[in-house]
């Protein structure tokens, strides 16, 4: 029955019937974590857009646990959603669950990160690797060639940590002296202590790349306490991050517009529910917000 349902949805002839059906069908959003402002904004953007369009969206928070995300997607399948928006904790680990969803005729949109091994109906991907590369290049342009720089890493093993680390090394390896690279678990308080320790060990460090704004802001506090002059670049462009850039405490942050990503996902989901065609790839521009002045 599932297969027929899927055929119906994809056949233009049955579009009217599907449309009727779809009004009853909801959208499911499986988000990697709501303990991180970036994804909170993404999810809030989606919810606001859904409200505007009058569609129902069910949000499940995987708490950065791949297994929980698989359970969440199963729960959403149980709910008979029409479209699954998935923001994977891990691109590989999510694929079995997404395959299950697809086999039940559910359309799938991936946001922020891709789903490996499955053709999703729409990819809304921002490129963490190139974002980190861009940010690091900007940092190096500020501190000059062969300057001493350090990196604050996110939670070990997290997808963002891996991708942003990759981008950082692509830009910095061989072109700067990386004196320290330590995890601060995406956490501001941890970053404060770790940055203090790095500054103790390397008083001459000129730049710090933090894999998210929370850690960048922790570094800002450490640098201020040590009365040093260090260029700090963050990632995510959170509200706090943006205002720190505006006031010059941070040099730059990478903006991926999570609220826009959330809203775009809902827009596309709505189209898929109606049986309309959507672009397979919706690139989200990664822009650098820098301090002007």
């Amino acid at each position, binding site marked *: 029955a599932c297969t027929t349902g899927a055929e119906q949805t994809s056949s233009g002839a049955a579009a009217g019937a599907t449309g009727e059906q779809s009004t009853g069908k909801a959208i499911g959003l499986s988000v990697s974590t709501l303990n991180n402002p970036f994804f909170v904004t993404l999810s809030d953007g989606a919810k606001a857009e859904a409200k505007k369009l009058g569609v129902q969206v*069910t949000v499940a928070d995987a708490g950065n646990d*791949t297994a929980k995300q698989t359970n969440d997607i199963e729960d959403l399948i*149980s709910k008979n959603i029409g479209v699954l928006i998935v923001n994977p904790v891990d691109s590989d680990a999510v694929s079995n669950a997404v395959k299950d969803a697809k086999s039940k005729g559910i359309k799938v949109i991936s946001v922020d990160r891709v789903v490996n091994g499955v053709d999703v109906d729409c990819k809304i991907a921002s490129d963490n690797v190139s974002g980190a590369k861009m940010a690091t290049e900007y940092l190096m342009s500020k501190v000059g060639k062969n300057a001493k720089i350090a990196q604050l890493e996110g939670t*070990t*093993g997290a997808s963002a*940590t891996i991708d942003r680390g990759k981008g950082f090394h692509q830009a910095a390896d061989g072109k700067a002296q990386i004196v320290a690279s330590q995890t601060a678990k995406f956490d501001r308080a941890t970053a404060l202590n770790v940055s203090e320790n790095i500054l103790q060990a390397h008083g001459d460090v000129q730049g710090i790349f933090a894999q998210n704004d929370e850690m960048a802001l922790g570094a800002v506090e450490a640098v201020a306490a040590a009365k040093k002059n260090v260029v700090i670049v963050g990632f995510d462009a959170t509200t706090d991050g943006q205002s720190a850039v505006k006031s010059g405490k941070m040099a730059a942050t990478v903006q991926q517009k999570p609220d826009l990503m959330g809203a775009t996902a809902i827009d596309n989901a709505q189209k898929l529910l109606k049986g309309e065609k959507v672009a397979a790839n919706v690139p989200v521009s990664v822009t650098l917000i820098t301090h002007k002045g």
Partner: protein
Amino acid sequence: MNTKTLSRPRIGDILQNLGAMIALIVLFVAFSIISADFRSMNNILSLLKQASTNGLIAFGMTGVILTGGIDLSVGSLLALTTVVGALMIHAGTAPVIAMLCVLLLGVVLGALNGILITKGRLQPFIATLITMTVYRGLTYIFSNGMPISGLGSDPLLSGVGRGTMMSIPVPVWIMVVLFALYFFILNKTTFGRKVYATGSNEKAAQLAGVNTHKTKVILYTISGFLASAAGLILLSRLGSAQPTIGVGYETDAIAAVALGGTSMMGGRGKIYGTLIGVLIIAVLNNGLNIMNVSSYYQDVVKGIVILLAVLSDRKR
């Protein structure tokens, strides 16, 4: 009169889990009434499948807690064993061999916990807190902090987590079989008696000839084995090994054990209580998700439900 006193403890046993049982039934009925999606057969089966991981870990935890111990390392152990298994498959080992190695490693790491606690005379909380940290660190080192995917499509490996038998998911079968087995061991064998004796009064048990150290090592070994078995299910369901997996799993398992009325002081408790606890947690997770309750409120709701259940079960 004799029969009356004989039957008394059994009624007591049921009463002991009454709060949890009622909580389970109330939650189940309430969610079923509110949501047609919840009560669908498909959903019930996927709920049970989701319960299986926590189920296996919680069964192992029950045995350990019955001796007044605790095993905080289960989540890290699960991560380490599955990462090693996935690396072996990558290196060309036959999946079935790799899977056996996962279980074997679970046994070894579990036994190591037990040995630290008995021979090393460390307090269980401290010993497993340390191994929790070390096993996690080793997981990162071996995996280089990266998830390991591309495990191929071995039918056994994918069957363990994703297959069905008589239209019931394989993980559910595994949970049921292991529950029955461990229930039997704890309630019907001499080893079970030794477990309760060790937890009830270790000194008296030793003086009665029970090798309490051996008993404990076996229980931690079983806990390690069951955690790695849970890891295999996840490895199969996810199709990849995650170095970050399992964080906080000890908490869910302990919550299930507590919900089931087992005393953290040891000596008193039942594994079927744990099963009820596992189901309560699974129903809550699944039901609250289906009803689109915000994850922030889910924490609060879960906390309060667990509180009410254990409050109504408290003794003395």
